[in-house]
């Protein structure tokens, strides 16, 4: 003891002059049955003063009462708030657990409590803990804190606990022993007293599986006495004549006690194991559900369900939503009262618990817990517990694990959202750059041609008529292209702004086709145009001017991208609800990966001929869709591309379809 206090003084002196070079590791050992507050308070102030890492080890050396569990749970939760790593060991051997943690964490200072003087044999045990610790690690400073003894001692607690459930169990134990004793009168004459002793032992073992330690021990003692009294000569007297019988009796007594003790201990461990497993399962289920959840609503749903079943509490999830601050998520099972929103906000900002069961606004209706990952708050969890007494130690550690898991999930979700946004932004930037690039190319190329041609003309001194004509032709071509582009851009703008409304009239498709072909005679002169129009086509609703432009865009597209001399086919077909207008060529066709994009603005098929405006096909699509139709493109068997326009017509025609020529 003196030794221990010396150690403490030495370590405090060392702390005062200590350098920051060797960080201290402080371990506070909390054992069930002792008041946890003094050791934890010393641990906190020491850790703070030394800026040391602080670990709290809780060892459950005896079965604590419910009250004690709650008390320790609160104390350990407080220690967590103070920044301690809390480890729980269910070893019966506090020393082994402490030594393990000391070795793992390179602990330099240990804080333990000292039993009150009155607890005689406990003190002996305590001294053994400290002295053994010193024997193993002589280089560790040990602080010993006297417990004030205000709290009920462990033995009283255990007594209390057994008292609560005892009467029935004692009756059971006594009844069983009485029955066995009655039975023993019947068979002892046959098998002998020694066999009867074994039967008693068996009874004790079986009994220990069902009742607490107290009744078991009472039954063991009672059976020993009964056996001696009834079945060892001299009968009906607590006297043993034989030396052999004396030994037998003593051995029986000891074996019965040990068996009873061991069995109840195994049972307690088994129970602890079951509880641990239940907690592990709950955590596993939550982790699995959270990993599988694909959106925020599902995440919240899983959290609420799991917490409700594990803590019998109402749950509210609060997450920050941009400028609006903390917002309660849909799916929460209680509404945060208006006055308590500020508490949640405080919890979010300070990463500390507040509300019910804490020192900060304990009068609140709910407990607010911070959801934080590596110091950054990601949200707040509100718990409205059904039992207002609070959480015991195991629930507390389960809750802690839940909080971490939930915080990580929200953090991951948040990061995913950010990266998704960044991706979208990059994609839209790339698109607008491509669009701008195409636009400047399309506009500046003809301007460059005009500028270059006028430059050449300006240098023309010698009246080279041939060159002059060439340059004028170049300027005319470039001007045409520029004019077409400007026209297309204007149409596209009108189309996009919604200002372009098709004027739907009943029109004749044949008239449309022939009209356009006539207008484009010069442009199509290098190609042979094949027209196939079905007779007696139904009259279709369309905007005649728009359709003229659609058809002429398709035809000039075909003319531009195919070799002179090849055929361009214009064809009509009739489907149930639509009239088909097909423009097909025998050019190089369209690469498969470009098929979906040829209608995009300024999209150019790689390696294609240039000279188009890059808008023609996008206008075709826009115009056709404005009239309620749609346009598709396929590559034809045998080479070339075929653009198909479908315009809906209401009155189903009865004219039979012509066989394909």
């Amino acid at each position: 003891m003196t030794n221990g206090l010396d150690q403490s003084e030495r370590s405090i002196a060392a702390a005062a002059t200590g350098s920051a070079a060797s960080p201290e590791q402080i371990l506070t050992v909390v054992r069930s049955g002792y008041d946890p507050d003094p050791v934890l308070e010393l641990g906190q102030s020491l850790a703070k003063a030394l800026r040391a890492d602080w670990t709290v080890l809780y060892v459950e050396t005896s079965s604590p009462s419910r009250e004690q569990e709650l008390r320790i749970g609160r104390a350990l939760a407080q220690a967590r708030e103070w920044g301690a790593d809390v480890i729980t060991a269910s070893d019966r051997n506090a020393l082994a657990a402490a030594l393990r943690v000391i070795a793992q964490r390179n602990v330099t200072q240990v804080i333990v409590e000292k039993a009150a003087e009155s607890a005689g044999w406990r003190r002996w045990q305590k001294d053994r803990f400290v002295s053994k610790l010193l024997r193993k690690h002589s280089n560790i400073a040990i602080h010993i804190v006297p417990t004030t003894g205000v709290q009920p001692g462990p033995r009283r607690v255990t007594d209390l606990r057994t008292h609560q459930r005892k009467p029935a169990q004692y009756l059971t134990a006594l009844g069983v022993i009485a029955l066995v004793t009655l039975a023993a009168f019947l068979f002892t004459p046959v098998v002998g007293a020694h066999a009867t002793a074994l039967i008693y032992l068996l009874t004790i073992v079986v009994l220990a599986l069902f009742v607490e330690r107290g009744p078991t021990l009472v039954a063991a003692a009672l059976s020993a006495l009964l056996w001696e009294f009834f079945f060892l000569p001299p009968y009906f007297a607590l006297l043993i004549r034989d030396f052999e019988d004396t030994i037998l009796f003593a051995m029986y007594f000891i074996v019965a006690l040990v068996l009873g003790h061991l069995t109840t201990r195994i049972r307690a461990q088994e129970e602890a194991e079951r509880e641990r497993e239940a907690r592990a399962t709950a955590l596993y289920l939550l982790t699995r559900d959270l990993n599988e959840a694909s959106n925020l609503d599902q995440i919240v749903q899983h959290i609420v369900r799991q917490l409700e079943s594990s803590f019998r509490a109402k749950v509210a999830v609060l997450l920050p939503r941009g400028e609006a601050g903390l917002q309660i998520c849909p799916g929460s099972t209680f509404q945060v009262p208006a006055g308590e929103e500020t508490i949640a906000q405080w919890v979010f900002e300070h990463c500390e618990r507040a509300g019910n069961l804490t020192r900060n606004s304990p009068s609140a209706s709910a407990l607010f817990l911070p959801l934080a990952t590596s110091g950054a708050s990601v949200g707040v969890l509100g718990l409205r517990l059904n039992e207002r007494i609070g959480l015991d130690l195991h629930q507390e550690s389960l809750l802690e694990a839940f909080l971490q898991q939930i915080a990580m999930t929200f953090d991951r979700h948040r990061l995913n959202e950010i990266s998704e946004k960044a991706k979208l932004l990059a994609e839209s930037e790339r698109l607008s750059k491509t669009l701008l690039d195409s636009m400047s190319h399309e506009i500046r190329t003809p301007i460059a041609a005009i500028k270059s041609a006028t430059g050449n003309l300006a240098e023309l001194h010698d009246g080279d008529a041939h060159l002059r004509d060439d340059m004028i032709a170049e300027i005319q071509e470039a001007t045409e292209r520029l004019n077409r582009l400007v026209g297309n851009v204007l149409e596209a703008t009108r189309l996009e702004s919604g200002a372009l409304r098709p004027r739907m009239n009943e029109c004749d498709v044949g008239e449309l086709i022939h009209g356009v072909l006539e207008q484009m005679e010069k442009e199509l002169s290098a190609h042979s145009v094949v027209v196939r129009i079905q007779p007696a086509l139904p009259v279709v609703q369309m905007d005649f001017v728009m359709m003229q432009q659609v058809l002429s865009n398709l035809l000039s597209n075909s003319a531009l991208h195919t070799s002179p001399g090849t055929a361009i086919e214009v064809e009509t077909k009739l489907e149930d609800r639509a009239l088909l207008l097909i423009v097909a060529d025998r050019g190089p066709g369209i690469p498969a990966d470009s098929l979906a994009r040829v209608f995009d603005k300024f999209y150019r098929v790689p390696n294609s001929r240039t000279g188009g405006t890059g808008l023609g096909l996008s206008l075709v699509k826009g115009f056709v869709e404005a009239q309620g139709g749609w346009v598709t493109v396929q590559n034809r068997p045998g080479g070339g591309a075929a653009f198909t326009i479908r315009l809906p017509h209401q009155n189903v025609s009865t004219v039979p379809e012509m066989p394909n020529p």
Partner: protein
Amino acid sequence: MSETSAKSKIVLVVEDEAQIRRLLRVCLERNGYSVVEAPTGEGGIDEAIKHQPDLVLLDLRLPDMDGVTVLRRIREWSQVPIIVVSVRDREDDKIQALDSGANDYITKPFGTGELLARLRVVQRYIQQPANRTIFNSGDLQVDLSTRTVKLRGRMVRLTATEYSLLLFFIQHAGKVLTHAQLLREIWGSHEEQKTGPLRVYMGYLREKLEADPAKPRLFLTEPGVGYRLALLD
């Protein structure tokens, strides 16, 4: 004036727009160059190998690959002067092309006179003998063997950094040098955003070597891109 020196020089035009190719051909042939055309990037690289041109005019927007890729591929084996002719007029595009080895950059639409002037500058640059010791441009004369700098015949004293900057400009006379290239060469710096020291030293050089530092004729600024040492007669 340049027709004698430009005789029989082969210019490779890598450009996808047929009309621009036609017009460039007319313009260049009338000024004494002979022209080889390529409508695609791959074609451009092939023609460069086949014809060993004296000059390359390269568009950045090609149907099969990016012009900068063509630039890098040609630079792998050839130091032929390459002038980029593009509609892209942002500094970033210019810097990328120049850093990839282009000698100059002209934005479309361009005047015929401007194009021919750029061609002449690049040609003067290739015509300079590799082991010459005297550099002349306008009033500036630099003797590289004795490291003496003269302005209108009078000696000018330069610090070591100023001289190494001037030397780098002389080695690439007529060519646009980007901020990054200059910072890397003179200061060994890879922080391309920190152009402070470069601006300060350009100020010193102009102060000492320009007739009117406010209207530089020798050390020209390419806004947002870099500087160029003009080759004056």
